[in-house]
């Protein structure tokens, strides 16, 4: 017997004819794969715990991040066509389920006598019930969630899995060696290998019939690159992630998530509070492991989602064209996603945005996936919109703005007001199974979800600072990425002026303005071919800025050329999202006001996600097609275009991964250096964490703790009740303050100060003589110190 649904036909077995036992066995067989999965996860977790394996949480984490999402897809009777797309969507929907379940338990629990609903006991019961519910629904619906996801997937490509695993393994060993000895050789080898595999994938997948396992290789190489950063140092690597850890730690210790009374945007996000707390309670996952391992694994799905989306687009096209070359799709994703500054450097340490951007990429993937029924797709898109609203406030607002703008543009497109005559669009609708996914309901949902969660329910302050700045200063169309390096004395003057306004309670030590500050140089890598620095920097600038030109041309080409010539290939959703993506990226790239609140590079990756498809269509249209009647000149042209594109992507990925800095010199990323300025700024050592924990326990409000700009990062991961002031220039140090000196300040003897909201900064030699003269050391580890 078969049941048909909107997406696919599912084979089910008939009810057993005899006896209750036979019926129970038959019902069990309907959900056997999920039952086996859950049992295997439970048994292996217990067995791994019995042998004290560090992998004990792994089966549980994989299960919680996969099965709930699979169940949602199974209940909705929908799934993307490709296995990679299914995996991405299952993880994103699972995160939604975890956040909704944990959030609901937190809000309801205290009212029914459960004061700590996020603790192990309560969460274990909840998830056991959910597991039973999943099995019951699967049996009733005759659709097993795990089988639903894996059906037709076949055994994974062994070579792809082994290669990806090796990349990840070498990356982990490389960072272990770098952390322990400072030797960068294995880390560099691993990164070269990651880059090599991505470039080899482009070449190997160039043939349209290529069967290279590109999705697995893309995931493996991306994860390896991300882990080489996230595992750096003795604690979490980066800036925002320290505060995110502090928020997660507070939630875990409270055993419940509450709407923050201080309107803190971080504490309002379920992705930073409920999600890590539930994973910790149910699977015993360490909190640091959530940020160091789980988030990079989720983020590594982002390029896979974009790749899947780009690969599936020409499914709409019914005449004359096949799918784009897999290698071309991989090249586009490697060039504009993996090589973007946001992906390679930023997002791994801004975990809330990493998760939300991955969900956004999954949303775009579903939007363009024509193998899913329209209604199911719209429901899944709605769920992802909800998930993004409590994963990251800014992405949520951006998504609402994007959907509003894209919807309006797509309406204009459909009515023939935008380039393509209405008649052609009508013909297109009738001739092929075109459809418009974005509708008023989704747009309203996005707006209500963003503003409802952030302003209505949690009333967080995420929007108040940027909106206030825009109201005061306007958008401020200037180059948004400019920061100025000032001499220390000049910056001190600026800083003292700022502190007089913002921290009037600071009483400086008499004579502190007389302390002479001397400029320090940032530690940097020399490079093995430093004579090429000028050439490489110019090449890089041209290549990076060239991406914007390609994206802009791709959109215009799509609207004016593809839209007119083959309107079936360029739908209203594609036009709407493309136009909006370009406007968004351009605005944030040129607005000085907005850039101080939202890094333009992080906006650029959203633009890239929205425009990856038009870019692929443009390039695929330009590439000469190989035919048997090809002349020598055309063959040469085809080869030349491949080589130029290949080299273009190679330059991008070499620079993004930090290999460029090793080649020509510069500030190498923390993943490839032992002591460059990035390591000093963002890597945190164990003694630094211990010092932060000591301050949390021993210094209470109304005391002040002062630390320099980057030294103070670790203090955010161990939040105390004291007031934190982020500078230690003598003229701005309060005479009664506790002054924290990090490894960089004390051992390297360099401090950093910022003013103008990060617009101006300086590096100067730490003023240890000043602190020794006027303060006493109250805590010391040899590499860190607290003065009072």
């Amino acid at each position, binding site marked *: 017997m078969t049941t048909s649904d909107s997406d696919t036909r599912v084979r089910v077995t008939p009810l057993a004819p005899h006896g209750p036992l036979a019926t129970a066995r038959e019902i069990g067989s309907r959900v056997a794969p999920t039952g086996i999965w859950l049992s295997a996860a439970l048994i292996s977790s217990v067995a791994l715990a019995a042998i004290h394996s560090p*992998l004990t949480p*792994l089966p549980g984490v994989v299960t919680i991040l996969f099965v709930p999402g699979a169940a949602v897809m199974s209940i909705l009777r929908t799934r993307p066509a490709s296995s990679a797309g299914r995996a991405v969507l299952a993880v994103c929907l699972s995160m939604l389920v975890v956040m909704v379940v944990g959030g609901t338990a937190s809000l309801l629990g205290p009212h029914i006598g459960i004061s700590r609903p996020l603790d192990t006991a309560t969460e274990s019961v909840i998830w056991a019930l959910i597991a039973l519910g999943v099995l019951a629904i699967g049996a009733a619906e005759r659709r097993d969630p795990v089988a639903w996801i894996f059906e037709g997937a076949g055994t994974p490509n062994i070579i792809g899995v082994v290669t990806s695993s090796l990349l990840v393994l070498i990356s982990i060993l490389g960072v272990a060696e770098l952390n322990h000895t400072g030797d960068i050789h294995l880390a560099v080898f691993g990164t070269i290998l990651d880059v090599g595999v991505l470039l080899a994938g482009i070449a190997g997948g160039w043939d349209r019939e290529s069967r290279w396992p590109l999705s697995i290789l893309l995931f493996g190489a991306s994860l390896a690159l991300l882990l080489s950063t996230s595992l750096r140092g*003795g604690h979490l690597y980066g800036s925002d992630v320290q505060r995110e850890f502090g928020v997660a730690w507070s939630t875990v210790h409270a055993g419940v998530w509450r709407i923050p009374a201080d309107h803190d945007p971080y504490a309002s996000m379920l992705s930073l509070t409920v999600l890590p707390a539930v994973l910790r309670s149910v699977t015993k996952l360490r909190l640091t492991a959530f940020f160091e391992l789980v988030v990079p694994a989720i983020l590594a799905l982002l390029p896979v989602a974009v790749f899947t989306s780009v690969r599936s687009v020409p499914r709409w096209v019914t005449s004359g064209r096949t799918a784009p070359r897999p290698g071309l799709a991989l090249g586009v994703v490697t060039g504009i996603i993996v090589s973007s500054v946001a992906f390679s450097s930023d997002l791994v340490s801004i975990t809330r945005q990493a998760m939300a951007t991955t969900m956004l990429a999954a949303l775009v993937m579903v939007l363009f996936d024509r193998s899913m029924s329209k209604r199911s797709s719209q429901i899944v898109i709605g769920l992802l919109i909800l998930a993004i609203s409590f994963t990251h406030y800014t992405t949520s607002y951006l998504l609402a703005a994007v959907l509003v703008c894209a919807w309006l543009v797509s309406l204009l497109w459909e009515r023939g007001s935008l380039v393509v005559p209405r008649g052609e669009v009508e013909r297109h609708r009738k001739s092929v199974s075109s459809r418009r996914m974005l509708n008023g309901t989704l747009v309203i949902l996005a707006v209500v979800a963003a503003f409802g969660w952030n302003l209505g329910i949690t009333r967080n302050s995420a929007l108040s600072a940027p909106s206030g700045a825009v109201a005061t200063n306007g958008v401020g169309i200037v180059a948004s990425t400019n920061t100025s390096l000032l001499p220390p004395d000049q910056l001190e003057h600026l800083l003292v002026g700022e502190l007089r306004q913002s921290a009037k309670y600071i009483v400086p030590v008499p004579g502190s303005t007389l302390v002479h500050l001397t400029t320090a140089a940032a530690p940097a890598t020399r490079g093995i071919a430093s004579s090429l620095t000028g050439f490489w920097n110019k090449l890089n600038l041209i290549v990076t800025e060239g991406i914007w030109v390609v994206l802009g041309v791709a959109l215009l080409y799509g609207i004016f050329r593809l839209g007119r010539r083959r309107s079936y290939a360029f739908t209203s959703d594609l036009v709407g999202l493309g136009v909006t993506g370009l406007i968004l990226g351009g605005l944030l790239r040129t607005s000085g006001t907005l850039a101080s609140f939202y890094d333009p590079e992080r906006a650029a990756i959203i633009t890239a996600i929205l425009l990856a498809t038009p870019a692929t269509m443009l390039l695929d249209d330009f590439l000469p097609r190989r035919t048997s009647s090809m002349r020598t000149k055309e063959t040469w042209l085809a080869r030349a275009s491949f080589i130029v594109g290949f080299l273009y992507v190679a330059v991008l990925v070499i620079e993004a991964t930090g290999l460029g800095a090793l080649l020509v010199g510069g500030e190498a990323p923390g993943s490839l250096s032992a002591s460059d300025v990035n390591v000093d700024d963002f890597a945190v050592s164990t003694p630094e964490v*211990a010092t932060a924990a*000591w301050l949390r326990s021993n*210094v209470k409000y109304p005391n002040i703790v002062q630390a320099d700009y980057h030294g103070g990062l670790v203090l955010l991961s161990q939040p105390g009740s004291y007031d934190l002031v982020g500078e230690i220039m003598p003229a701005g140090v309060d005479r009664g303050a506790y002054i924290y000196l990090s490894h960089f300040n004390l051992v390297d003897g360099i401090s950093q100060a910022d003013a103008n909201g990060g617009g101006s900064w300086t590096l100067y030699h730490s003023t240890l003589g000043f602190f020794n003269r006027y303060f006493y050391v109250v805590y*010391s580890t040899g*590499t860190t110190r*607290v003065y*009072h």
Partner: protein
Amino acid sequence: MPRFNGRVARRLLLSLAVAAVLFGFTPISHALLRAVNGSFAPTPYTSLALRSPSQAESGVKQGVPVRVELTNRSGRTRIYEWRATQAGALIDVGLEKLANGRSETILVPTNHAASGNLRVSLAGTDVYVAVPILKS
């Protein structure tokens, strides 16, 4: 006897390989980390802290012992030699044996100290704390 086709055998092999990696992870990972001289173990350190950090502001009267907390996170049991000095002159000295992960409060006598700065340090390290001594 059940017959295994290629697909089933392949999946079985894959499952066995996954199980082998899962359960052999600890010895395998230790061997690999040793081979590359790598580690994710915390950086060893020793710390000294004033038990009452506000004493840096209020001072300690001569004769009242200074309470200093010594913490050993060096990864092994160590015997520490601490020294209390004033302007380079030795006021007191002592030994403290401490297991890894443990903390101990040292009582530093100030009977022979004069008014001024008292520095308590660990011999052979740059780890120290300081406190002002006031006349009794």
